[in-house]
């Protein structure tokens, strides 16, 4: 048939990848580059590494996974295009991704329309509230991080908090959530400063916080900004202790900030960073140790919680496909929603029709940097 030949030729010429038939096509759109690459890069690496591992072990239900990752650069419009491509062209049965909230929200209508299950790796509460039947997420929400931090502050008698936030999506989103839960948590925000994610010096903002009477400082941000904030905090010799967010939860942060400056910084994070300090017998210990060792051996880079989110999403999906015994998107969705007692890097996940986040506040540990190492705060 001439017409068919023509279309096939066109497809071949335009060099769009045509997936093989018998595999399970799983898609992902992540911010491998762009401002959120700090998050998206370990996510993509984790997915590639773990999918290879699963395939080497015989795949899922005897079928190989065909992983298709697109780099949306953190741009919502690009993510939307890749979402369409995953659905229409790659014919995936499930999608992982959306490194940050904007791209995630832009992609949701596509998957909702096509009825494809979607597990997001972004932080905001809006992704799962209100619950969309097709949308799940693996990371803790920003709101949980805020609550955990404020609880720790209050327990130490700090009720006046100075906030300093990155102006990127991550920082702004958490800034808004923290301000929202501050009153209920029993703290007052006495200073609210912002910096650009690439800024070289935050001493003006910190000087103002210093003068505001804040008893503790909370920095919501990711990437290199928090490292500069931490160094400036030490430079200005501010007495109020510094809390970071889960956005810097990797060993690399300590290197960037410098051991001396990072001393005493606290942050809420999953057990991944302190795998070895978990008590023996903790159900999470083997999971996080296994993932961390594999990741660090494979990439030569320090493990971060963001890669962990991708790890959790992939294995939740794997379990669901195995349970459903089918690669029908609807069946997979139902099985994901029934996920119970799944032990991931972020904690124990229990999804339900009303809860597509599945994590509780217990999943967070409060960590403190001591002598250049993460330690669990008792």
């Amino acid at each position, binding site marked *: 048939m001439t017409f068919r030949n023509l279309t096939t030729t066109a497809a071949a010429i335009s060099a769009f990848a045509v997936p093989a038939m018998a595999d399970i096509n799983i898609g992902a759109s992540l911010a*491998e580059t762009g401002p959120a690459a700090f998050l998206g890069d370990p996510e993509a690496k984790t997915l590639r590494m773990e999918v290879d591992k699963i395939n080497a072990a015989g795949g899922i239900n005897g079928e190989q996974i065909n992983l298709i990752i697109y780099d949306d650069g953190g741009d919502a419009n690009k993510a939307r295009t890749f979402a369409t491509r995953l659905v229409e062209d790659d014919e995936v049965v499930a999608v992982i991704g959306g490194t940050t909230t904007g791209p995630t929200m832009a992609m949701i209508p596509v998957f909702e329309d096509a009825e494809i299950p979607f597990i997001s790796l972004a932080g905001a509460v809006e992704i799962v509230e209100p619950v969309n039947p097709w949308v799940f997420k693996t990371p803790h929400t920003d709101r949980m991080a805020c609550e955990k931090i404020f609880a720790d502050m209050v327990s130490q008698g700090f009720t006046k908090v100075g906030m300093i936030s990155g102006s990127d999506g991550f920082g702004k989103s958490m800034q808004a959530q923290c301000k929202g839960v501050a009153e209920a948590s029993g703290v007052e925000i006495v200073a609210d400063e*912002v910096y650009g994610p*690439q800024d*070289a010096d935050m001493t003006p903002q910190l000087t103002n916080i210093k003068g505001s009477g804040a008893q503790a400082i909370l920095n919501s941000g990711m990437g290199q900004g928090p490292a500069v904030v931490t160094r400036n905090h030490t430079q200005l010799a501010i007495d109020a202790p510094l809390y970071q967010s889960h956005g810097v939860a990797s060993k690399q942060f300590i290197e960037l900030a410098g051991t001396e400056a990072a001393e005493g910084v606290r942050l809420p994070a999953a057990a991944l960073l302190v795998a070895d300090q978990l008590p023996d017998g903790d159900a999470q210990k083997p999971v996080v140790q296994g993932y961390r060792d594999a990741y660090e051996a494979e990439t030569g880079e320090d493990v971060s919680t963001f890669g962990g989110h991708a790890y959790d999403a992939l294995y939740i999906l794997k379990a669901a496909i195995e349970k459903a015994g089918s690669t029908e998107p609807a069946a997979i969705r139902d099985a994901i929603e029934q996920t119970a007692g799944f032990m991931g890097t972020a904690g124990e996940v229990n999804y339900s029709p009303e809860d597509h986040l599945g994590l509780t506040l217990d999943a967070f540990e409060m960590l403190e940097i001591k002598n250049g190492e993460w330690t669990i705060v008792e």
Partner: protein
Amino acid sequence: MSELLQFLFSGLTVGAVYALVALGFTIIYNASDVVNFAQGEFVMLGGMMTVFAYAAGLPLPLAALIAIVATAGVGVALNKLAIEPARGAPVVSLIIITIGASIFLRGVAQVLFGKQIHRFPSFSGDTPFRIGGATILPQSLWVIAGGLTVFVALYLFFTKTLTGKAVLATSNNRLAAQLVGINTNWVMTLSFALSAAIGALAGVLITPITNTSYDVGIALALKGFAAAMLGGMGNPKGALVGGLLLGVLEALTAGYLSSQYKDAAAFVIILLVLFIMPQGLFGIKQTERV
């Protein structure tokens, strides 16, 4: 009062970073009227190569030197392989080539160096100097001193050396420059080498403060370009003053008005200055010749 001083220190630190990037723009611009959008990538390469050479065990000064020389080599390659073959193309086409080069260099860095954020230690430790209740890090002084040194060197280069004057002549009138015996190819190659080297030096000096990763060049080029325009493109004095002014404006806005809108304030000032002085603070007013 100590607050103001702290804001000024912060502004000078940041401003010196901008000034160093802005100074890198001047030579290529003076030789060819092209604003090199890959200038930020030169800064990135300087920082990244130093990071990796240092991590490989070389002493920091040697690592930095290697990075600067290698980046200058990249600059020469960019001129020989991309700018020279496009000789005679409109300036806007050359600018698109430098935009392509910046994407290309970022892509190469991403493959070679990965996407992690890196840093190497400050040259003289992290114990801040305390002056009048405010503090400044030793590395900030390195950056400020670096900016001043490059400025003086460039100033002398353009006003006192024959080569510097040859660069200016090439920009003014390429044909005439060739007629009086200036090897304009060589001038262009030299300009790219020097601009790249200045960029790399900036990268070496600022990395202990700003950290570095494969994509830091974008934001640095943006601010460096804005600083150069504020001061007047092509004039080393303009780059220095423009950079420092921009940094101080941002710090004062963050300190006294709103940290949320500090970048906005900087651009509003740039717009205001340009409305009054369309060629920037130190730019040369061009008379229309007909």
